[in-house]
């Protein structure tokens, strides 16, 4: 991370439900770093981090509501922009 102030992160529980989401973050945000910590997974990126509904659905094999993300959410940093299609973190 070149500019620490600019960092956004998303932390999810490390469980079966969250795995397809983590995979999607990896696919859609090649710049993001993924850290596996005890019981949780921290996904960090400079500037912007996005979870796309479509990618998660592909990984999960069924329809997925973006709000299901919150079931496994531990913490996040950044301003949230959430709609039917995506969940996006960025600093405005």
């Amino acid at each position, binding site marked *: 991370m070149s500019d620490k102030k600019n960092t956004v992160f998303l932390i999810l529980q490390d469980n*079966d439900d969250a795995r397809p989401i983590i995979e999607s973050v990896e696919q859609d945000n090649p710049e993001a770093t993924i850290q596996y910590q*005890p019981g949780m997974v921290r996904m960090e990126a400079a500037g912007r981090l996005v979870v796309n509904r479509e990618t998660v659905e*592909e990984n999960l094999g069924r329809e997925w509501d973006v709000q299901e993300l919150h079931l496994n959410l531990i913490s996040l940093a950044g301003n949230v922009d959430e709609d039917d299609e995506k969940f996006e973190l960025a600093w405005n």
Partner: protein
Amino acid sequence: MSIEISAKSIQPVRLTYGNLEERFGGKKPSSRYQEAVYDVQPTANFQYRPLWDKDHELYDVSRTAIVMEDWYSFADPRQFYYGTYNIARSKQQDVAEHNFAFVDKRDLLEVMPEAVKQAAREILVPLRHVEWAANMNNCQITDECYGANFSALAMFNAMDRLGMAQYVTRLGLLLDGNETTSLDAGKKAWMEAPHWQPLRHAIEDMFVLDDWFELMVAQNFVLDGLVFPLLYDRFEKKLTSEGGATIAMLTEFMDDWYKETERWTNALAKVTAKESKDNQDLLSSWVTKWGDRLSIAIEPIATKAFGENGVNELAEVKQALLARLAKQGLAV
């Protein structure tokens, strides 16, 4: 006294089963789907050949002309195994039950124009026999195919077909106040009416196909690809415009089911055709063969359903099907 709390991370020695480690590298925990499906079917040490088929082992790759290096190279985009399949279907069943109860409670079929009811009796009710045949065919595929992700999905498909035959039956019963009049008439039409005979003939020819993959193509790619968009989608839209929205409500499952199943057949066509030129040629020739045969067989029904527009509607549906399969790499 101070207590120091620190998190200690314990890495498991193995994240998944050995067979999945070999396949996927074992760097990540496997999904339930992978654990439930991959390498489940026995591949060796079949002591005896089955009495009914001395030329093949119990599970035998040579039961089809399609050749795959790895029969597990195909993954279901829906990731269906017993658990996910049942959860998905149970949700849909709740919706369907609710729809049936609603239509019954409000007597919605009473107010529907008689012409629409008659059209549903003549076109939709005999489809329960088509669904039953599809059940037979998918049971056959389950029996002869190779690899657990073929057999499991074919069996799920077969069960879906029984479910859909039951929905059609219930629709038929509701149409006549729980009398079996239209079911009997539907059976008679299926057995005797000239416009159903070409389709019945084609389906009965499918019953005796030797190659299970050809049967898969004929039934799940081509026949479904014609019947579902034509009758459960287009024909029901026509009924809706004539005051028969209630019918669409009772067969909503079929429409949703087809959209979902399309993802499976697409993935299957794509992976199989990509494997080799021979596979691609074989698949393409089967699609052409059954596409021609079945579209001719369905034509009289299309004409009965849509009048003189029927031929056009069917041609459009067939075109869409071929375009979809061509997109997966088939030469059709």
